[in-house]
């Protein structure tokens, strides 16, 4: 597809590469023969260099890493080409010889720290095993070395945690354990396959820092697999862009980001929201869309102001509190409760987007479920379009749902797999007796077109749609009842970056046309910056800062808001050498023992409508 060798960085070209991949093609066995998922891929990694492979789902980036490690299931997969590690050709090694390479010369960390450790062995033993399979050590030597490794990955009280089991560690700490395990035999190359994707953004920042620091200390090369352009910009010297199994482009990260040749690269980068790019704008902004064949940008229309501040808010929340009691012990006594949402107040006007942003466990989703009464709040007042949400009986609750609708995170999970898309979209209309089946079908067909799908697709079942299409179906379904408010709970988080941009644009279009109000729940600061009128930052169940989007992003006041913003990776290669020097703290739990009285909170008004919680 392109000449890789000519693009090599001058400095690294002189060193013999640690790993050299030539014409790698990986295929999987399917019913009709072999299907290639990675085609004709070539690249080198020099000592101490970081190469990133970036691509959307289905691009073959993970298969590449598993091919190098030869961890794909034998018989079901076929690897062709040459993979050279120093003077060894990995593909011609025997299984036993390859075993000697794994964990010793090349180590790997994976995306899911929660499931990548064996649940029945203490973590110390699992790290020790990585040592003892490649060298003979006494028990005490191994223990001492493991402790050293645990300290190296900055696990607090390392020695005392040797005998603990994986479930006693948080996700971020487990990923540190995985890294310690990978470093055990001082590998020449570390393959990191989406190592921070499952982690919260502040934890991601810590892990990225750690990998960079350790790379310097150990002098290893890193092959970094990711879908996140921000992460790429922060870690990699050179970048390889993949699209459906093909190498689209490879070059220095700076070249790729600023002088990308291939239209796909440019389209991908255009779709990535960049934190801080909205400076000086008051209204939300559509994402630019670039044609992946020509590389030309399509005209970007500005949005008009839809917010109706003069009317009464369509959603009004006062002192909303939702707690979940935990019972334990023999008599199932209440031992405490999770203070998921604690005295949260905000209002949302017609045509407005208010974003709730925060990390896992901050209560943003529970807030969304509380205002729609999918969970029953403990106390407070919620008014939706004139309905008092807290006191509704079952039948009025159903009527209230016509005013407020939800779109969920996982487009694969939120549609009944055994119901055709047409039935799914028409169902709310029919269940609420809003008209005949014929009317329902007509309305559904109209909405399908509005969300960018063909009405012909209504006969199909959810599994026949892609993730982005399903999310469009879910949006069409929510619109069947002509709601005034849509609670979008991480509605674009699970989507690939280019699809994410399109669905965000769709949401903005619908707001323009239908004057919808969105309660936009997200952990993604960059997307939030793009789509919101106002933003509320949540931490441990409370709103710590709320205000107009521009005010909060340009002038963050609360320390947690600042920390959150600092942790977001920005797709700008100039930040390659950036280190955040974040402490290894973990995300706190909102669990409180029985009898806990939450402190009274006060807020300071920074500017008009911009409030910050006083510590």
């Amino acid at each position, binding site marked *: 597809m392109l000449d890789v060798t000519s693009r090599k960085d001058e400095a690294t070209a002189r060193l013999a590469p640690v790993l050299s991949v030539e014409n790698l093609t990986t295929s999987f066995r399917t019913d009709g023969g072999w299907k290639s998922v990675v085609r004709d891929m070539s690249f080198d990694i020099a000592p101490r260099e970081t190469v990133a492979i970036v691509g959307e789902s289905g691009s073959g980036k993970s298969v590449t890493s598993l091919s190098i490690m030869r961890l794909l299931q034998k018989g079901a997969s076929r690897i062709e080409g040459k993979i050279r590690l120093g003077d060894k050709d990995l593909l011609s090694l025997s299984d036993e010889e390859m075993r000697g390479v794994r964990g010793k010369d090349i180590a*790997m960390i994976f995306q899911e720290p929660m499931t990548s*450790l064996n649940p029945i062995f203490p973590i110390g033993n699992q790290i020790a095993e990585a040592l003892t399979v490649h060298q003979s050590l006494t028990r005490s030597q191994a223990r001492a070395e493991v402790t050293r490794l645990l300290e190296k990955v900055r696990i607090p009280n390392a020695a005392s945690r040797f005998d603990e089991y994986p479930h006693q560690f948080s996700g971020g700490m487990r990923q540190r354990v995985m890294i310690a395990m990978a470093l055990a035999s001082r590998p020449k190359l570390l393959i990191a396959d989406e190592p921070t994707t499952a982690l919260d953004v502040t934890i991601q920042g810590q892990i990225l820092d750690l990998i960079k620091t350790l790379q310097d200390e150990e002098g290893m090369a890193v092959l970094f697999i990711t879908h996140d352009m921000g992460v790429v910009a922060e870690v990699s010297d050179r970048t390889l862009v993949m699209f459906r199994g093909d190498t689209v482009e490879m070059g220095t990260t700076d070249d790729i980001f600023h002088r990308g040749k291939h239209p796909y690269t440019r389209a991908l980068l255009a779709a990535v929201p960049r934190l801080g790019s909205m400076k000086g704008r008051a209204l939300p902004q559509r994402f630019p869309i670039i044609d992946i064949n020509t590389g030309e940008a399509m005209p970007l229309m500005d949005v008009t102001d839809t917010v109706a501040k003069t009317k009464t808010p369509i959603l009004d929340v006062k002192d909303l509190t939702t707690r979940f009691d935990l019972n334990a012990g*023999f008599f199932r006594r209440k031992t405490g409760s999770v203070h998921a949402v604690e005295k949260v107040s905000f209002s949302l006007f017609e045509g407005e987007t208010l974003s709730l942003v925060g990390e896992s466990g901050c209560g943003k989703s529970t807030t969304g479920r509380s205002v729609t009464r999918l969970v029953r709040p403990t106390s407070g007042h919620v008014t939706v379009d004139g309905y008092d949400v807290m006191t509704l009986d079952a039948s009025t609750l159903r009527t209230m749902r016509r005013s407020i609708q939800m779109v969920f995170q996982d487009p694969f999970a939120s549609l009944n797999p055994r119901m055709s898309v047409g039935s799914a979209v028409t169902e709310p209309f029919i269940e609420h007796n809003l008209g005949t089946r014929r009317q329902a079908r007509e309305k559904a067909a109209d909405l399908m077109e509005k969300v960018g799908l063909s009405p012909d697709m209504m006969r199909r079942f959810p599994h026949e749609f892609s993730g982005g299409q399903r999310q469009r179906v879910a949006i069409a379904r929510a619109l069947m009842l002509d709601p005034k408010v849509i609670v979008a709970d991480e509605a674009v988080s699970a989507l690939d970056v280019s699809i994410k941009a399109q669905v965000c644009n769709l949401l903005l279009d619908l707001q323009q046309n239908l004057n919808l109000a969105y309660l936009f729940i997200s952990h993604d600061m960059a997307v939030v910056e793009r789509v919101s009128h106002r933003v509320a930052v949540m931490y441990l169940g409370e709103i710590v800062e709320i205000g107009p989007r521009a005010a909060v992003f340009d002038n963050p006041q609360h320390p947690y808001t600042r920390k959150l913003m600092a942790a977001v990776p920005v797709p700008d290669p100039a930040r390659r050498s950036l280190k955040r020097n974040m402490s290894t703290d973990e995300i706190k739990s909102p669990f409180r023992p029985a009898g806990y009285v939450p402190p009274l909170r006060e807020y300071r008004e920074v500017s008009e409508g911009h409030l910050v919680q006083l510590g």
Partner: protein
Amino acid sequence: MFGFLVQRVMAAIPTLFIISLIVFSLQQLLPGDPALVIGGGEASQEMLAQIREQYGFNDPFLVQYWHWITNVMQGDFGVSFRTREEIGPMLAAKIPVTLTLATAAMLVSLVIGIPAGILAAIWRGRGWDHAVTVAALSGISIPNFWLGIMMILLFAVHLGWLPASGYVSFFEDPIQSIRTLIMPAIVLGAGLAAAMMRHTRSAMLTVMRQDYVRTARAKGVAEKTVILKHAFLNAQIPIITLATLQFGTLLAGAVLTEQVFSIPGVGKMVVDAVFNREYQAVQAVTLLSGAAFVLMSLLADVLYFVANPKLRTKTL
């Protein structure tokens, strides 16, 4: 551990109570007058009235249940209508026989089922896997009483290698005891072995797909260690659970096996009781088998607790 155990034992009590209610309610199903069943067709009206009085058939259901359950708790399961023998001691004599048979069958099933299942999972899709799959499917499809009959036909009638029936206590004549036990144990254990094979295979396949198995391979751990340590030690939890919970199936299978091989165990007793219309004996055996199952699930809980660090490390 102790707290956990107490909790499980306490949870078993209501289950046992409901089992006893179910078992006692069975006699409400008897068509017609239970006194007629005891007295027989020729019994006079006075005799029937006397029987009703003696057995408390005129009392309300709950009173009858109360009498029955308080007696049962003292080991009094009633008296045989026919032989006037007490049912409790009769049962006590037969339990060791059935337990010996069940244990032998369990051994057969574990020794065959687990290794065969593991190998089938490792060599998935190859010859051995297919052979095991076919064997296991045949094993669960063969009625064990027919398998027993066929084995008698072959090994006792035709070849004369093994005795066709009977039971010899191990303490009286160990060799003869084992010779009489071989066929019943295989017959009873075959179905269970098949179930164990299928279960072990699928548990191993599930575990082998887990991320931590991939991690172990990425560390360069030898394949044998990956399978036996990282995979099997995780898969053993569902396997052990199944083994203990299959105990009930084993007891039920013993009824037929004992019938086929004329082994004087609890199973033979319950069949004889059914034909002699000894309903109290049927109730006693049903109750005991339910209680035995509850005991085995308790054992499964304990094993599960020991094998699962998540439970172990949680202080109760």
